[in-house]
Each structure stands twice: as structure tokens, then as C-alpha cells.
């Protein structure tokens, strides 16, 4: 049987959703017989591959780089899942949204810094005006909120999809 190609991605989030994904413990071994994790922070691939079946995306869209990545992911993914509150609602990254970006950077990197008081520009992507959920940029096929979503819920969604069932019907919902 051909393995299902699954990718994960980490945008503006704390990696807690990926921790929760790993928290499925031994279940990951039985899942590994049916899926290939082809991209994400947990594997080595540098470039997001073509024709991915399922991609789980953690984090809000906060920078120009996040935006480029989510657009590429969307193009190359059949089923896109927003994983966790940041991807679904904006959550903690979006708490900066009422502060203008230049004021925010000034406060943190200049006023708040002990030394090297400069706003970094090299090697960091420029921030967008707001951190916003995935759904406001690309079509999202399924939202799994939670901070983080429990490992059981993540397993439930993946298992349902592998069995050809609609995961929406069996979704355990949780915000925060």
C-alpha cells in the first residue's frame, strides 16, 4: 500500500503543537506504517515537496516569510489542517496586533534591551502589520483548535483521514 504523505509546518507559534503531536507516544510507530512524514521541523527535508496529501500547520501568519510559506504549502497540499489556536485564531502571536510594528520593535529591541540596542534586520523576515490566522490568507480544510490540541485529538484526525472518514464529525473541540 502506498504511504500517505504527511507534512508539518511551524509558522509563528511556540512549537507546543508539535510537542503535542509527539505526545502521541507509541502510536506514532503504528502510524509510521501508514504515513511518511515528508517535511517539517521533525525531519530533514529542506524544501516543501510537491503533492503532499495532508499538511498540519502550527502558528499564525506573522511575517512575509510565513505568508510565502503558507501559500506554497497550500499549492502543494491536498488537505490543509490548521493545528492549534495560533493557526486557527491568531492566539498569542496576535496579541501584538493593536501595537504598530515599528513601535513594537522599538520597545523590545531598543528601549527594552540592555545592550546592542538595534532593531534586527539581517536574517530575520519583516513582520506583517498583524499576525493573523491561516484562514485569512489561504483556504483551510480543517481547523483543530487548542493550546495545544491534545495528542489524542491529533491522532483522531489523522486516523479518521487515513480510514477515509470525515474527521469533522468526530472532532473534540477545545480552545485554550
Amino acid at each position: 500500500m502506498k504511504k500517505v504523505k504527511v507534512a508539518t509546518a511551524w509558522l509563528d507559534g511556540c512549537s507546543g503543537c508539535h510537542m503535542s503531536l509527539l505526545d502521541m507516544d507509541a502510536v506514532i510507530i503504528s502510524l509510521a506504517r501508514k504515513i511518511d512524514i515528508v517535511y517539517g521541523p521533525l525531519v530533514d527535508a529542506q524544501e516543501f515537496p510537491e503533492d503532499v496529501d495532508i499538511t498540519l500547520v502550527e502558528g499564525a501568519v506573522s511575517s512575509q516569510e510565513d505568508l510565502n510559506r503558507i501559500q506554497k504549502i497550500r499549492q502543494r497540499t491536498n488537505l490543509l489542517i490548521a493545528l492549534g489556536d495560533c493557526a486557527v485564531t491568531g492566539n498569542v502571536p496576535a496579541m501584538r496586533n493593536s501595537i504598530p510594528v515599528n513601535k513594537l520593535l522599538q520597545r523590545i529591541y531598543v528601549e527594552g534591551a540592555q545592550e546592542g540596542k538595534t532593531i534586527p534586520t539581517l536574517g530575520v523576515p519583516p513582520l506583517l502589520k498583524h499576525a493573523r490566522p491561516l484562514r485569512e490568507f489561504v483556504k483551510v480544510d480543517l481547523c483543530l483548535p487548542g493550546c495545544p490540541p491534545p495528542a489524542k485529538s491529533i491522532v483522531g484526525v489523522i486516523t479518521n483521514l487515513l480510514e477515509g472518514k470525515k474527521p469533522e464529525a468526530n472532532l473534540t473541540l477545545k480552545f485554550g
Partner: protein
Amino acid sequence: MSQKKLSIRIDGELISALEGQTILEAAKANGKYIPTLCALEGLTPVGACRICIVEVSGVGRLLPACTTPIQEGMSVITNSPKLTLYRRISVELLLVERNHVCAVCVSNGHCELQSMATALGISTVRFAYNYPKLPADLSHPRFVLDHNRCILCTRCVRVCAELEGAHVWNITSRGIHARVVSDLNQKWGESASCTNCGKCVQACPTGALAEKGRAVEEMVKKDDSIRSLAHRREVQA
């Protein structure tokens, strides 16, 4: 003096209820569940949240069950795909209007807005988030008011006016600019009429009003004293 009894149908079932009761009261008295958010037992209903909307046959629009009085022969539907859709939309609008960040909220896990959202099967919202810049009032020695988490249900306004008799709280401005204010838009800590009873805090369905010093998930509201006070008042009346 005995109240007149009326016959109505709720979800097809014939029930008898007292004249003057609202659809919500009649439903509750007969063990029928209608979801509510701004309603609190013992306080005057205001129909602020629109979660309790029901279909009434012969009426072309949806009516809030908490403020609509029953009429003889009325036929009420409490649950349908249409009602679920509009209830969801109402909650989604509350979620996008201000900054409801469950992960960092004192009321996470004990919030009526949060539990209503999941009960209605909301996994995401269909609208763009508003992300307004809103203040928090930390001037009171024991309590906090965070406008980011307020849904304008007016439970605080009503419990203070009707049960405590102090009427500290009110709503100022209209529409998206509406805010809960204490006294004449003064800081809560400087309010001359506040008795520091904390009923508003316990009545608040979200983390908008909370006790100071609570960390994330630590604010569990206790509204049983409000309920018993309201009950005693009803018995006296």
C-alpha cells in the same frame, strides 16, 4: 391569585405554562434546554447575546426566548439547522469583536463563552478578527476589568443594579464602541457607589471581570450566592 395557564407547543410537545412567563422560562420549567449566554437566573432578561433565539411559527424572524413572552397556542422550535447556524454566527461575532485569547485568560476552562463556542461545534470563525486596542481597569484593590474579554452581556450591570442595589455599572456609547463603565465613566477604584461586593465578578461569564492575583485558568466563578439571593427576593415578592 392564581395565574392563568396557557397551552403552547415546544418542539411539537404540548405543554402548559403560566401567563407572563417567557419562552425560556416555560421551556426550563418543562425540562427543555435552550442555550443561553447573557441570561442569569434572577436577573431581568435583556436579549443581549442572541444565543437563545428560537423559531416561532407564523413569525418571520427569529426571536430571543429570554425576552419573548408566551402566548396561547404558540408553537416554538428550539433546535434546527437554521438556529444552530445563527447561534454559531452570534458566538463567532463575539469571538472576533474583541481579543479573546483563551490560552492566557484567567477564565480558561471555566468560561461560558468558550464552552458555548465548543458546544455549538465552532472550530473556527467565518469572519476576520477585529483586534481592537482596549484597556483594562486595574484601579480596584480586589478586582480587574479587562475590556478585551467583555461580551457586553450586561450581567454585571444588572446584578449590581438589581441585587446589590448599587448600580455602579452601565454601558456607554453604541455599537462597536460600547463599553462597560463604572459610575460616570470613572475608574472603578475611585467609584463612590461600589460596595466591593464582587457580585459583578461572579456573574461575569468570561474573564472580563476577575479577582486580582488569579493566573491563567484560576478564575472559577461562583454564582450560587447570586442565585440564592435572587431566589429569596422572589419569595419575598
